[in-house]
């Protein structure tokens, strides 16, 4: 098939346009990447992010928590409703924990 008729071309263009609109919208309107702390648990425990994306942790417990990823980032102590944000600039598996309650662990997978 070395040629393409008008009608097929039209469909192909529309499909491409829809696809690009679709993916652009996904990026524009996607919820900010969020990890919530409830009951001494990071949720979701594992999160996938793209390079350049920011993840925000929010502490919803009555007890302070922290988010610590050895050598990468370390939050201040977050009291109730306190937040911490980190923008990931390199791919990798970022395992983190709460330095006050180290049994609390989570991971951000950056692709």
């Amino acid at each position, binding site marked *: 098939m070395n040629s393409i008729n008008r009608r097929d071309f039209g469909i192909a263009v529309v499909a491409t346009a829809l696809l690009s609109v679709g993916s652009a919208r996904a990026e524009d309107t996607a919820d900010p990447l969020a990890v919530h702390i*409830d*009951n*001494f*648990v990071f949720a979701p425990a594992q999160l996938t992010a793209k390079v350049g994306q920011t993840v925000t942790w929010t502490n919803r*417990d*009555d*007890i*302070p928590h*922290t988010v*610590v990823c*050895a050598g990468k980032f370390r939050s*201040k*102590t977050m*009291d*109730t409703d306190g937040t911490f944000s980190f923008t990931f600039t390199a791919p990798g598996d970022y*395992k*983190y*924990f709460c*330095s*006050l*309650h*180290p*049994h*609390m*662990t989570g991971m951000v997978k950056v692709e």
Partner: protein
Amino acid sequence: MSDHDHHEDGVSRRRVLECMTWAGTGVLWTVTGGVPRSLGLVESAKAAEAAGMTFLQISDSHVGFDKPANPNAKGTLEEAIEKIRAMPAKPSFMIHTGDITHLSKASEFDDAERIISQAKLDVHYVPGEHDIIDEEVKFYKERYGRGTRGPGYYSFDAGGVHFVGLVNVVDLKGGGLGNLGDEQLEWLENDLKGRSKSTPIVLFAHIPLWTVYPQWGWGTEDGARALDYVKGFGSVTVLNGHIHQVMQKVEGNVTFHTARSTAFPQPAPGSAPSPGPMKVEDSRLRSLLGVASINFKQGDQRLAIIDTPLQG
């Protein structure tokens, strides 16, 4: 308690009972013949006659905590200190097993100091994880760390008993529990070396040195090493806080015990989704902070952790 319980010339048994019982805040320890014993309900009537040295343990005052489980943690600490002041037999000193403050703010340390000093007793502190979360991690050491090593461990002798304050809330590892670390453990080994095995030993630290409930982080990763060093001693007592409830187990010559908080109760292991502050009816709060008592006898071989009833 009504007025007729008071005797003109002293304190009635019921009065003693009440004070001693409340001192569970506040666990009252007495050392008779070199063996530390806690004064529980059963023994409290004898408390006034108890010979030897008496000391008090308070824990987890969380000054600054104002959430629903207790909007006024400062107030309940004040009440605890009031009760201690009113005790008929003045203890020799107090130990505080950490979480003095809730957020390590200077103002919280100031308030705690102002209130606790009203007891007019020497206080030997160890930090909890809530006491070392100021930006520069300096307030605790500035106030209580004089003469201590590393993050604040030390030992002293009183009444023929050797006391060791340990720090297991620093440099915690992801996925792990409380942590003493090699340096402190080496120091402990040396500190105990050469001491007569008949010297009663009291180890105190914030997080339980034995594994209470690892799912909630209630234990110390390398606590077993510390316990190894005290193995040969005839009487060893391990006092902790952190879990805001009384728990006890006896293993050979070692008695493990955790004290209540003066701020808020926490649930029994596994009985709630998390170890967070437990909200109870206002009328019950104070009973969970202070009323139940503990009692143990040397030579008790029970290995089970005993969850003392909250009341009675």
